């Protein structure tokens, strides 16, 4: 029998410290599979966040730079401007991207930095023990919103990806999830499209938001967490392409109209 599926070579043989059923593990695997398939491992630089994925360099067998909380897009800007031929992506959680790093996220997009941002949205602060995030849904409990988030007390849930998608410097933005085989396959396609933006030198930032399970802080089993994304989370954070300004897509759209 032939081996047809297994652990990607670019994932170091180290057990993930992520919780059982965590979306990080799946996305790490997809990214390393893509790095191998697209043959970009030798020119890939990853900017790791503060958050559960701070130890990303323990798993991804590529060059990884740690960044201060939220500053990933600024660090990635410095890297990509210095190495325009490199493939650079930031890997960020909801606090990193939509709280402390809001300015960096928006301005890297506004400048049209040719990087990719992988935004892992689990609606909570995982690493620090379950505090409220900008993406925490109304009614969802967190340690700093023990009675459940309410608009009057904690304010509105923030959908930063939709705001970012309005910036012309964002050349591709899609929201996916990793809670089922179909969703995972689709997420891989979206990540590939985002990486290809750099390979094709599209003039802007590519964003992939991944709705990710956090069973520990959601106080659910892994399988229940997957269901909750379908039943609740993706109603507020709708899956799909948020914006597509790629030159490639425009060419295809023009061809369709012409043909």
């Amino acid at each position, binding site marked *: *029998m*032939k*081996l*047809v*599926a*297994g*652990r*990607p070579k670019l*994932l170091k043989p180290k*057990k*993930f410290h*992520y*919780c*059982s*059923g*965590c*979306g*990080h*593990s*799946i996305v790490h*695997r997809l990214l390393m599979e893509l790095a191998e398939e697209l043959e970009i491992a030798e020119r890939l630089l990853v900017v790791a966040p503060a958050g559960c994925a701070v130890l990303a360099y323990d798993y991804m067998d590529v060059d990884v730079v740690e960044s201060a909380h939220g500053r990933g897009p600024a660090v990635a800007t410095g890297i990509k401007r210095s190495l325009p031929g490199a493939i650079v992506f930031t890997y960020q959680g909801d606090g990193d991207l939509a709280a402390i790093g809001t300015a960096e996220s928006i301005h890297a997009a506004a400048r049209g930095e040719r990087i990719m941002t992988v935004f892992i949205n689990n609606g909570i602060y995982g690493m620090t023990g379950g505090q409220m995030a900008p993406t925490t849904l109304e009614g969802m409990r967190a340690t700093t919103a023990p009675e459940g988030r309410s608009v009057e007390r904690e304010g509105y849930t923030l959908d930063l990806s939709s705001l970012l998608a309005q910036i012309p410097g964002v050349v591709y933005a899609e929201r996916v999830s990793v809670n*089922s*085989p*179909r969703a*995972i*396959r*689709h997420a891989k396609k979206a990540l590939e499209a985002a990486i290809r933006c750099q390979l094709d030198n599209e003039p802007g930032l590519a964003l992939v938001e991944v709705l990710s399970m956090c*069973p520990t802080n959601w106080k659910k*089993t*892994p*399988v229940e967490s*997957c269901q909750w994304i379908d039943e609740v989370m993706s109603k507020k954070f709708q899956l799909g392409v948020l914006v597509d300004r790629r030159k490639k897509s425009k060419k295809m759209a023009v061809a369709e109209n012409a043909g």
Partner: protein
Amino acid sequence: MTVSPLLLCEVVRYVARVCGLQNPAYDSPGAFFIRLAPALEKERDFAILKSYALKVKGKIKIDAEYCKSCGFCIEHCPKKLIALGKAYNSAGYFPAQFMAEECTGCELCALVCPEACIEVYRDRD
């Protein structure tokens, strides 16, 4: 007229080559079906159908030390060939175990496994 899945995918593979799509995914019927699956609603049923059509045999290996008993592979195996074992690993989890011989190598378990600790083998593509 009934079209056998095998014939259908050979046709598609030919068309793909003619259109210049050099994606290795289209190089084999089995791989093609797996790539096609997301477009279909009843993925699980299709996986079973494919296995009967192609008479593919497969098996999986789960690395028990990495497994964290999340249950995704158990949930998504179309033929329910995986279950939580009775022994625990050094982290205190009860790793999933592969139970039966009727595996078709559909790769769904490896696809959903967060720990990337499932290897899938197939004897024919």
